[in-house]
Structures are given as C-alpha cells and as structure tokens.
C-alpha cells in the first residue's frame, strides 16, 4: 500500500500553509494605528522619471511625489501651486512665476528658481533637448531665467496660448542637485526619488505596490493621512473584488464597468461617482483621400444613419451621452460651442442625400452603386478585443445597410489598426481617446485637424489620419494658439467646432463617462467633483473618527464627523481660464435591488454535482 503514505503529503503541505497563514494578521495590527490610504491601479511601474515615464500608475505616483507650478482643478481653474503667484505681461510674452518661500525638496534642500530654470533648460537648451522636448516648446519659448532665488521668468518668441499649461502644469520642476548629475534620458529615479510633493517615496515592490509616506514639512500643510499604498493590478476583476472586500479604499486610472455598478452599490460603504472632468470620446474617421468619402454630402448621409443615443443605451447601458458633432464636447465647459449639437438619426434624409448624389441601387441587390458602377461596400476597421468598439461598429453597420450601404467589420490588433489608419489603408476607422477638462484645448484639435499632420497616403499620419486638409481650418488653428484673450480665443475655438461639424472629417459618436468607486468606511473628506483620488481630494482626506464613543459613566459623547464637500480654491494672480458653471454634472446612481451572486455560485455547484451524479449512474447501469 505504497500510495497511502504518499497521500498525506499534500494534506501536510496544506496544513503547514494554513498554520503559517495564521501568523499573518499580526503584521496588519502593527500598521493599524496609521492612516494608510490604499489606492488600486491597473498597471505596472516603468520609471519615476517624469520625462520618459508613460504608465498611468507611475504617473500617479510621480504626480504625488512632485508638484507643478500650477495645479489645474477639475473645472479648469488654474490654481498657483508650487508657485505662489504668476503674472503675464501685457504683450503676452513674459510669464513670471514667484515660488513659495517655504517650499523644500524631500531631502531638505530649498526649492529655488534655479531648480526651475535647470529643469526647463533640460527641455529647451541642453544636449537632451531634441529627445526631451515632446511638446515642441522650443519653437515658442525663447529662454527661461532665474531672476532671483524665488522668481523665474519665461520669455516667449510669440504669443502662445497653451504656454501656461505646458510650463505650469505639465513639466515637473526637478531638483537640480540630483538631476544635474544624471542622464535625464536613462535615469530611472526608482531608488529614493527626491520630490517636492505632499508625499515622500518609501518603498517599491515590483508588481505589488509603491508605498509613500507623508511629507511632514509640506508647504501647503501636512496632509492628514500618514501613508499611501498604491496597489498594482493586472486584472480589473481582482481590483474590484479587493475594493469590495475593503482591501483597497479607492481606484484610479481605471473605470468601473457599467455592469458592475449595481453590485458595487449594494455595499453601503461604496460610492460610485462619475468623473466630471474626464470621459472618453469614440468616433469613426473617414478616409478623405478615398472616393466617395471625399464627398462631404456622402459623409453627412452616413452621419444621418447613426443613432448615437441608441449606442449609448445599448452598448454603454446608459453611462454616456451622444457626442456633439464639433469634436469639442460639453465636458470642456466654456470651450464647447452650445450651438453645435449632433445630427439625429434620419434615414429618409440619408436616403435622399444618397439619391441626390446619384448613388442608387441599379441591380436590385439592396446595395447602392456609385455612378460608375462600384458598389457602396466598405469596411469599418476596429480594434479586436474591445467589445465596446465592436458592438458599436455592428450597430452602425446595421444602420448603414438600411440605407443601402454595405459595411463589414474588420477587427484587428491595435498595431495593425494604427498602421493601416496612419498610412491611409482603410475606409472607415473606429477609434477612441480619453478627454480631460484639465488638458489644454489645443492638445485635442491642433494636430487632429491641421493639414501639416496629413501627409499623402502611404506615409504615416499620427492624429489627422482622416487626412483633413482645409486652409481655413489651418488658419483658425494657428490663430487660436496666438490668441491669449480667453474671450477671443473662445470665439475661434467655437468656429472650429462649427467647421468640423459641417465638414465631418470624422463622425463623433458618444462620450463614455468615467465611473470610479471608492469606500467611505475609513476616510472622510473625499472631493468627488475633483475625482476621489486627485491631489486635492487626497489632501483633504482624514481618518474617520469614532462615531459614538461610549464612556463607562452615563455620559455619551458624540464626535461629529466633518465632511468637506467644497474645495477652497486659492486663486492668486490672474486666472487664465474663466470658471464656468458645470454643464456636465456628476451623478451618483442609487442602488437598485438585485440578485445575490452567491445564488449563482450555489446553482453552478449544484449543477456540477447533478452532472456528476447522472454520469455516475449512467456508467453503473452499464
């Protein structure tokens, strides 16, 4: 009976693991005294080098480790941050920042104008400039100069509206005494990065977490939480389960799938909120260098076949809204031109336009032909593995077939799609991108619609892969860059939207709202309007005090919980962007009564048992 002895081994191993696991909770007790905020994120860490790092998780961490001169709040307000104030001269050519007198790097060295000068000179005037200047700033900035220890001056070559955004909010000032000794291109900054932000680096465990501890000497006051643990995930399912189990307090750089919302809301300690400042735009782009997409009316006919609201309702389960035809969405507040809405589905009108163009079905197969006899049969190129894209594309193909246009869906890998669109080897391309109110508007329009970005077919086009070429548009795009007066610039941006909506180089479909969830049982002070994990929100968080403290005598003390909902905005100097009233308001969905998933588990287990039993009986009868 040799095997009976062997059978004990797995059991023994299991018991050993169980016993060892009992020793674990002690480590939790040790840290229970501290206010540790755990934030889940679906990514890994590339580096903490703000110049080369691309990953969302790393970006969140170095965004917490370092401060920028200006912080842009969710409604687009420019808040002086590491800079105490800033000013722009009347010719719109010199921007001056005054740094905070009490600001120190994490190693205790004061933050000076020299550090700022050094950082910007890396981008503007160093051996590394051609690799570090991702924003093309050298074209617009003449020089950067430290006037005195706390004052730094930027001189522009010509008025450039996005300058304040890039200088103030995108480039992170770095400590000169560290970065002058390294190669900024290959410096990983993973071991003990020295920053300026509210939290200091403590530890990085590859594939698991990054730990940050509070910066006691933070110039805006010590944050009330002691430690942040950024927890890295490879699967969103595990992240959501950990949030439900209370192993993490919040999530960032990932959104909640609409299907999950009811499950999450069943937990009274979880809140699901819609981010007011960011959402994702989806669109179909037309290959304008290809007949018949080169005909504006034809594109308009396609626009009339699409029912944007229906896609939102079926594909997004309502967590989104139809996109305005002019590319810029209501999300952007005042930049959005309210007179530019979207074309509602009108199949009769679409058919009329097609008839007028001479695109009629001559051979009676239900598909229209162009006047020279080729069928209106196209492909919609989309990215494989993105169910949302494919479902939307299928709906569009269905509507197109109703007006006599045949559309096949081609789902290919991101690399292939990108290459084919870039080189103009497609008919209709389905694409999407995230949009944020805190990003300069120029970022979304300039390269997207400028003819300089539209090389001939065969050459790679980055953003303007529709190959939209319109001299009027080019002129407006240049003009808005040079206009610093917010009112005048807004007029130009509004005009751009009208032209995009008229010409339809791409048909915007819908905005997918970003849903995030966080737990309310441990911390108070979440600022939902800014996003629960934003810097402003994290800085206002504090540990939830005991709600009722019972003392041995008859006196019952109640400690009130202060829930901060308003943001105190420190606005010094001039604010560039006007504060508009929010057009998109965050909504919190209430919990609908739903089924318990445990029932599903039980049902599946019962099913398996029944199957085994039936099979067993069947074999025995034999």
């Amino acid at each position, binding site marked *: 009976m040799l095997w009976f002895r062997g059978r004990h081994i797995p059991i023994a191993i299991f018991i050993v693991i169980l016993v*060892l696991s009992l020793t674990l909770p002690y480590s939790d007790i040790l840290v229970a005294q501290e206010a540790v905020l755990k934030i889940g994120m679906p990514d890994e860490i*590339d580096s903490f080098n703000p110049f080369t790092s691309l990953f969302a998780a790393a970006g969140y961490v170095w965004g917490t480790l370092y401060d920028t001169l200006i912080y842009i709040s969710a409604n687009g307000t420019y808040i002086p941050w590491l800079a105490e104030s800033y000013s722009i001269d009347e010719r719109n050519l010199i921007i001056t920042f005054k740094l905070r007198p009490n600001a120190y790097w994490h190693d205790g060295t004061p933050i000076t104008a020299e550090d700022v000068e050094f950082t910007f000179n890396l981008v503007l005037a160093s051996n590394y400039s051609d690799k570090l200047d991702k924003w093309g700033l050298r074209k617009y900035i003449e020089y950067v100069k430290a006037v005195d220890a706390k004052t730094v001056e930027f001189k522009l070559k010509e008025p450039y509206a996005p300058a304040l955004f890039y200088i103030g909010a995108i480039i992170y000032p770095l400590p000169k005494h560290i970065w002058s000794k390294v190669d900024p291109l290959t410096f990983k900054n993973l071991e003990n990065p020295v920053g300026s932000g509210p939290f200091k680096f403590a530890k990085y465990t590859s594939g698991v977490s990054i730990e940050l501890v509070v910066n006691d000497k933070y110039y805006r006051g010590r944050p009330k939480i002691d430690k942040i643990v950024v927890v890295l995930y490879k699967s969103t399912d595990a992240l959501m389960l950990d949030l439900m*189990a209370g192993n993490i307090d919040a999530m960032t750089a990932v959104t909640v799938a609409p299907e999950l919302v009811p499950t999450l809301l069943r937990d009274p300690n979880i809140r699901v909120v819609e981010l007011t400042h960011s959402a994702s735009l989806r669109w179909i782009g037309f290959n304008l260098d290809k007949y018949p997409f080169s005909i504006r009316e034809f594109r308009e006919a396609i626009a009339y076949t699409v029912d944007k609201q229906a896609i939102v309702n079926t594909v997004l389960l309502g967590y989104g809204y139809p996109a305005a035809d002019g590319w810029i969405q209501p999300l952007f507040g005042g930049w959005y031109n309210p007179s530019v809405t979207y074309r509602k589905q009108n199949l009769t009108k679409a058919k009329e336009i097609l008839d007028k163009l001479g695109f009629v079905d001559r051979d009676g197969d239900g598909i229209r032909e162009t006047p020279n006899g080729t069928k209106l049969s196209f492909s919609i190129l989309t990215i494989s593995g993105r169910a949302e894209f494919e479902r939307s594309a299928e709906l569009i193909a269905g509507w197109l077939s109703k007006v006599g246009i045949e559309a096949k869906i081609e789902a290919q890998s991101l690399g292939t799609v990108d290459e084919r669109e870039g080189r103009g080897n497609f008919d209709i391309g389905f694409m999407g991108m995230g949009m944020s109110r805190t990003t300069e508007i120029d970022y979304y329009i300039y390269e997207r619609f400028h003819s300089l970005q539209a090389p001939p077919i065969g050459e790679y086009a980055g953003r303007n892969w529709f190959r939209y070429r319109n001299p009027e548009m080019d002129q407006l795009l240049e003009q808005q860059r040079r206009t610093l007066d917010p009112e005048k610039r807004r007029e130009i941006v509004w005009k751009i939207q009208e032209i995009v909506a008229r010409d339809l180089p791409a048909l915007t479909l819908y905005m997918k709202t970003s849903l995030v969830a966080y737990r309310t049982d441990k911390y108070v002070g979440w600022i939902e309007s800014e996003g629960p994990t934003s810097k402003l929100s994290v800085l206002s968080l504090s540990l939830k005090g005991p709600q009722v403290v019972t003392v041995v005598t008859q006196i019952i003390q109640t400690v009130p919980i202060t829930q901060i909902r308003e943001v105190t905005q420190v606005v010094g100097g001039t604010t560039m962007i006007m504060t508009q009233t929010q057009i998109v308001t965050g909504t919190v969905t209430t919990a609908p009564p739903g089924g318990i998933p445990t029932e599903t588990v039980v049902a599946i287990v019962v099913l398996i048992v029944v199957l085994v039993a039936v099979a067993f009986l069947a074999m025995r009868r034999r």
Partner: protein
Amino acid sequence: MLAVFFIIIILNFILPRAMPGNPASILANEYNLPPETVKILVSLWKLDRPLHEQFVAYIESLFTGQWGYSYKYYPRTVYELVMERLPWTLLLQGVTSITVPAFGMLMGILAGWRRGTKYDVAVTISAIIVYAIPYYWLALMFQYVFGYQLRIFPIAHALTPGASYSNFLEYVADVLWHLTLPVLVVTLTAYASYTLVTRNSMVDILEEDFMFVARAKGLPERTLMKHALRNALLPPLTMLAIRLGHIVGGAVITETVFSYPGVGYLIYESIMFKDYPVLNAAFFMLSITVIVANFAADLLYAVVDPRIRYVRRG
C-alpha cells in the same frame, strides 16, 4: 543542437519585426502621446536605422550586457525586468510543476490500478469535467469565494501590499499564503490531463502479456505495481518534461487573474506592444530552457524506461 540555436536566434529577430505595426505608434495610441513624441521614440529606439544595423545591435545586446532597454518600460533594461519577475515565476511554476503531475499521476495510477471500479469511474468523469472548466472562470470563483466571501485567502498579488515584516518567517508565510489560491486553481484545472494519460497507459500496461505472466507467477501486489509503474509513467513524464521546458515562460492567465508578478505577463505585454528587446530576450530564454528540458527528458528515459540504455560504444 548548435544549428537549432542559431536558427532560433535569427528567427527570434525576424518574427517579431514581421508583425505589422510600429512599437512607437502603438504606445502613442495607448497613452495618447502627441505625434512629436513618436518621432522621438523612434530615434531613441533606433527603429529608423536599417535592419542590418538593428540586427548587429540585437546580437550585441544578446551576448553582452543587459539585453538592451525595453521599449514600453524605457529606460529600464530587459535584464532588470526579467530578473524582477523570474523568481516569482520559478516559484509558482516550480510548485505547480510538482503539485500538478504529483496529484494527477497519483489519481491516474489509482484509477488505472482499480480499473472498472466505481473509484475509476469517479476519477475519470471528474477529471473530464474539471478538464473542461475554463481556468479563468474557476480562478474568479475561487477569488470570489475564498478571497471575498470567506476572506481566508488574498484575492491577488504575491505579497500583502504595504505590509512590513518583522522577521523572515513572516515574509515566507505571506508568500505561501498568497501562493495557495493560484497553486490550488492551477492544480485543479491542470491535473486532469495527467490523470487521464496515466490511467490509460496504466490500463494498457496491466493488460500486457508480461503483467499476465507476472501475476500468474504469483508475484506480490507490491512487485506487480512496481513493474506496471515503471512502464506506465513514461507518457506522463514526457508531458512533465514539456511542462518544465516552459517553466520560465510563466503562466499568463494565472499571473493576470491573480496579479502575480511573473514573466508570462511581461511576455504577453511585449507581444501586445511589440517590445522587441523584451520579446527577443524572453524567447531566447524560453528556447534555451526547452532545449535543455528536452535533453534532460531524453536522459531521464534511460533511467526510467527499461528498454532504453545509453551504451558506451567501442
């Protein structure tokens, strides 16, 4: 073997580059980078150089230094990325390379030995059912039941995020605690093929003439078992050798579902993003272990299979 090695090195260079798409623009698309950045990345990674120059650089990076910089994780080197993950992969794969065949073969031997009994039927049917369960589904269910409902095992990761350990034993315990669910799920979903193969070969061997003779001679059960085992274990051992060859390749699904830091996910990512240096290093490593494992399997046969002997000639 040397020829195979060289073919691998050359294919390793050509195949990833034959896939459509440019690594820089894929990254740009994923992370919303402006077109200017794409140009910078292309020149940084020397993708604008002619292919033969890239090939020379590839060979150089393979035999000297750190296998180059990863594209996606720039400026981290491939060596650094792989070494961070390899211990976790070896741990997870090593443990399951023991538990899966051990459990699977044990069930198979028992079922084969008692062929035709209720026990045999139960083992075979349950193995077929378990074999058909999708891995990720079972993993999610285990996470849900043990991690969320019962809270006895962690849902994800190889270590508790943010934990501090007062001694080494606590660290080991934490590692094992996190290892339990992945190992359990892998074992449950992968053991079945070993069971079925072992059972079938066991049944075949037991029907052989020499077993009939042995039984007729009145040999004790224990000796009969020994004779049968020696022959019946050859097919599952071959399977094990193949499995060991992929040990450094990691397990993409396990690592993804349990957010376990391993090489598998890194390779998956590098395919998605056409991270050539990572891909090259990973497949280089993988092919070497496969060659070594196959070689080891050949040697092992000599020990296990009574019919094969390496004879010194001359």
